[in-house]
Each structure stands twice: as structure tokens, then as C-alpha cells.
């Protein structure tokens, strides 16, 4: 509940206002949500600034060498001066994440539809999907390198494996969450199974799918980076391993900054898509 507008007050007021006067469309543009968010952003931003200052002060006071712990100012400098190198490697990682994510999304939603529509598939596949989560995906990263090579493919698979599960589970949950009375309404209206799926079940599942995607997209960055650590020829993870080996700890931190920005950016992108695709949700959250 971040919006100050009380929910209950709206219908009562709407009833009294002459219909022609009332603008029925949702009022708050997404920039408005951002502005409203500033109040929430301020306290953590202040805390972060405090920590960075403390860090800077400690590094200077104790004269810590940059290959142990670089000062934030030194990291910031590298973030700017080495942007050519960092952006290039970031692009490689981003490509792995996006392709891996896209594959997992399409495959995950399709599998969820299968699980939902067939009892047999559900009984056979769903327990295995859940059990597969006990296998740490990172543990099979070396195998993926063996199978898919040092190139992009192994990292794509890694990112896809990590996000596949939350997408499948959330989509299945969403498809199951449809109000049975609404299904009955569609049946009484004479709807076909396809109409029920496309006009009822999938729209009802979308908020669930989006919440799965929001979680998944940030973790898919982790998957790609781990893949790059294990064996790669490019990417931010590859850069970090090499910089670390050469005691360029400052460059490692600069790469982490780029990774964080990438993950936050992806999260915001998903939120923006959700905002645009589900206008009706803006009224209820």
C-alpha cells in the first residue's frame, strides 16, 4: 500500500459524482509512482551513502591497499574510466541473461500449460520439477561447460535453468487460482475450452507469472555470472576472475557495480512491462 489514495473512498465518491465529470481511467502515471517512491528511496539511500563514507574513511585511515579493499572513490573512478571494457563485457553477460531468460520463459509457460491441462503430465513431471530444486544448479556448472563449451551457450543454459523453476511454479499456481465460479460463468455462457483458457485463465494467471518473472530475472544474472566464473571467454564474470587473479580488486568491484545496475535495470524493466500490460492492477496495489 504505497499510494495514499484510500481504496474504499473511491467507489463511494464515484457514486455521487455525475458520470460525465468523473475520469474513469487510472490517474497515476508511472512517473507519479516514481515520485511517490522517492520518499521510500530516501532512507535507504542515506544509509548507503553513510556506509560508503565510512568505507572511504576507513580505507584512508588504515591505508588499506587497493588489492585488499579499494576505496569507493577509486571504484567509482574505474566505473567511469574503464567503461569501454566494462560495458563490452556487460553486453556479453546481458545477452546471455536475456537469451537464457527468454528460453526459460517460453519453455516454462508452455510446460506450465501442459502440467495444468493434463493430469498425467502433472503427476509425472511436477514432482520431478520440484525435486530438481534440491540439486544446486551451480554444482552442475562445470558439467555445462563440458557439454556446451566455453562460449555463450553454457551460460545461456545456466541462466535458463535458474529461472525455469520460478516461472513454471508461478504460472501453474496462477492457472489454478482462477475462481471456479468464473469458470462456471464462462461454461454457462457456452464458452469453448480455448475461450476459457485465453479469456479467463491466462489473464487471471498473469499477475502470478509476472511475480515469478520479477524474481527470476534478477537471479538469472547470478546464473550467467557463475557460468562465466567456471569457464568463459568473455562477460563480467570472466573479467572478475581475471582481475581477481591479477589483484585488480578495484576492477572486480567495478564489475560488481555493473552487475548490480544490470540486475536492477532488468527488474525495473519487468515492472514497467507489468505496469503497461496490466493496467487494472494499478488500481488494486
Amino acid at each position: 500500500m504505497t499510494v495514499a489514495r484510500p481504496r474504499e473512498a473511491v467507489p463511494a465518491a464515484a457514486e455521487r459524482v455525475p458520470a460525465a465529470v468523473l475520469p474513469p481511467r487510472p490517474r497515476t502515471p508511472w512517473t507519479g509512482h516514481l515520485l511517490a517512491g522517492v520518499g521510500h528511496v530516501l532512507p535507504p539511500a542515506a544509509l548507503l551513502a553513510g556506509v560508503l563514507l565510512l568505507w572511504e574513511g576507513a580505507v584512508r585511515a588504515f591505508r588499506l591497499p587497493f588489492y585488499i579493499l579499494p576505496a569507493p572513490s577509486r571504484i567509482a573512478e574505474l566505473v567511469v574510466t574503464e567503461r569501454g571494457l566494462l560495458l563490452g563485457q556487460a553486453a556479453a553477460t546481458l545477452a546471455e541473461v536475456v537469451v537464457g531468460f527468454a528460453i526459460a520463459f517460453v519453455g516454462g509457460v508452455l510446460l506450465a500449460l501442459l502440467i495444468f491441462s493434463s493430469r498425467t503430465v502433472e503427476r509425472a513431471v511436477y514432482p520431478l520439477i520440484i525435486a530438481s530444486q534440491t540439486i544446486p544448479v551451480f554444482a552442475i556448472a562445470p558439467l555445462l561447460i563440458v557439454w556446451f563449451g566455453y562460449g555463450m551457450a553454457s551460460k545461456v543454459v545456466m541462466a535458463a535453468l535458474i529461472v525455469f523453476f520460478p516461472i513454471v511454479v508461478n504460472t501453474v499456481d496462477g492457472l489454478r487460482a482462477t475462481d471456479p465460479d468464473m469458470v462456471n460463468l464462462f461454461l454457462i455462457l457456452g464458452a469453448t475450452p480455448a475461450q476459457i483458457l485465453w479469456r479467463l485463465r491466462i489473464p487471471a494467471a498473469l499477475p502470478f507469472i509476472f511475480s515469478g518473472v520479477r524474481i527470476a530475472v534478477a537471479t538469472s544474472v547470478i546464473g550467467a555470472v557463475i557460468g562465466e566464473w567456471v569457464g568463459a571467454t568473455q562477460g563480467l564474470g570472466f573479467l572478475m576472475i581475471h582481475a581477481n587473479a591479477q589483484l585488480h580488486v578495484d576492477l572486480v568491484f567495478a564489475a560488481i557495480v555493473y552487475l548490480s545496475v544490470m540486475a536492477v535495470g532488468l527488474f525495473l524493466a519487468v515492472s514497467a512491462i507489468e505496469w503497461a500490460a496490466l493496467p487494472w492492477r494499478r488500481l488494486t496495489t
Partner: protein
Amino acid sequence: MGVALEVRGLRKGFRYDGGWLDVLADVSFHIGHNEFVTLLGPSGCGKTTVCNIVAGLIPPDAGAIRLDGEDAGPRRGRVAYMQQKDLLLPWRTVLDNALLALEIQGAPRGPARREAREMLRRFGLEGFERAYPAVLSGGMRQRVALVRTLLSRRDLLVLDEPFGALDAMTRRAMQGYLRTVQAEFGKTVLFITHDVEEAVLLSDRIYILTPRPARIRAEVRVDLPRPRRSTDPGVVEHKARLLGLLELEEVSP
């Protein structure tokens, strides 16, 4: 006046907690064209089960349903149905919710939208076509549901306690809307309620159901002039009679 709906010897039970629950023992009634008929009975007596069978959602264990003299079988999409929950799709605007039935029937979009707009206007929802259900009051939502029901172009409306969740004033207004619509569009209505006054104000005929397992206890014709008010002597008299018929059943062992 021909018979629009004939229900004969309806029987239905459900498996329940390992046992068997008889819900409908023997339910028979009929509704003439353009007639407003109410099934009145205590809560949990199986009224909704009758609706679900008439709508083709569930098959009866025994009995027959004839629509316009033809055996209805298990086919769906033959009646318009509305219940206490408005069941508006939250991701659709008021207009798109209203024309859902037309869309499912494959009606061309342009004329469907025009028809829905016109109907929304008549129900005082002009200006709200692009609003989402979340911003509407309970009464407005129920009016959208009523418009959706009417636009399904079925002559028989099955209304299962449609105003049960509304406050008294909104409820009165909705009853007015419903009467107007029925008179104007020549719809046949099967109305379900446990509210005696609502039944007397709206109906041409009332069937009183016994507690579960349901049978028809009595049939009461309401030959009162319209519009009716709850204070009219005739209405008061009918209410007293119906209450007597309902209570008689409750005190008997």
C-alpha cells in the same frame, strides 16, 4: 401464454463426507413466456442446485428439463445466468465485461460494443465504460453484471439471489431496474431468493420449497397491480401468508 421452461421430477444428490446428501427430492415447476417466477425457500435448501441444473452446469439424477417444449439435455449456453457474486473480470473494463457474452458467442465487435454502450447508458453507467470494476461500488458492479446477463441474448434469465450481497437501498433500486428490464425486453425470469418481501414485490408466481431435500411445498400466484410497494395491503397480506407457509415447515419435525 406458452411454457418457456418446464422442470419435472428433478432429483439430485451429492456424495458428501463418504455419505450421500439428498438435495432435491422432487422439484417440478414451470414458467410461462414473459413470466416472472420465484423459487422461495430457506437457505441451503437446494435452490442453487436447481439453477445449476437448469443452466446445464450439472446433470440431474432424475427428471427432465424442457425449454420451449424441447428437451434441453446437457447443452450449455441456453440461459442467461446471474448470481450473488458479480463475477466481473478485474482485467476488463466495464464495457468489455458487459459484452463478454456477445464476444463468446462470436458476435461482431462493432455492433456488440454499440449495444453494450447503449445498455450501460440505460443502467446509469454512462461515463464508466472504460473504468475497471475495482473502482466501482457494489451496486454499480451488480448493474454491470445485470447488463452482461441481459446482453447474452437469452430469453430465459436465471437469477440466483442476485441482490443478496447488496445493502437495502441499493437492493431496492436493483429490483426496480430488473422489473423495468423484464417488462421492456419481454424476458422470462426464474428468480431465486430467500427474501419474502423481494419475492412478493417482483413475482407473478412464487413456488415455496421445503428445507433439504427440496420439494415444492406450495405455489402462490401474486395477482397484485404494479408498481408494488412493501406497504401495500395486498403485499403485506401475501408476505404474511408466505411467511406462514415457510414457518409451518420449519416448526414441523
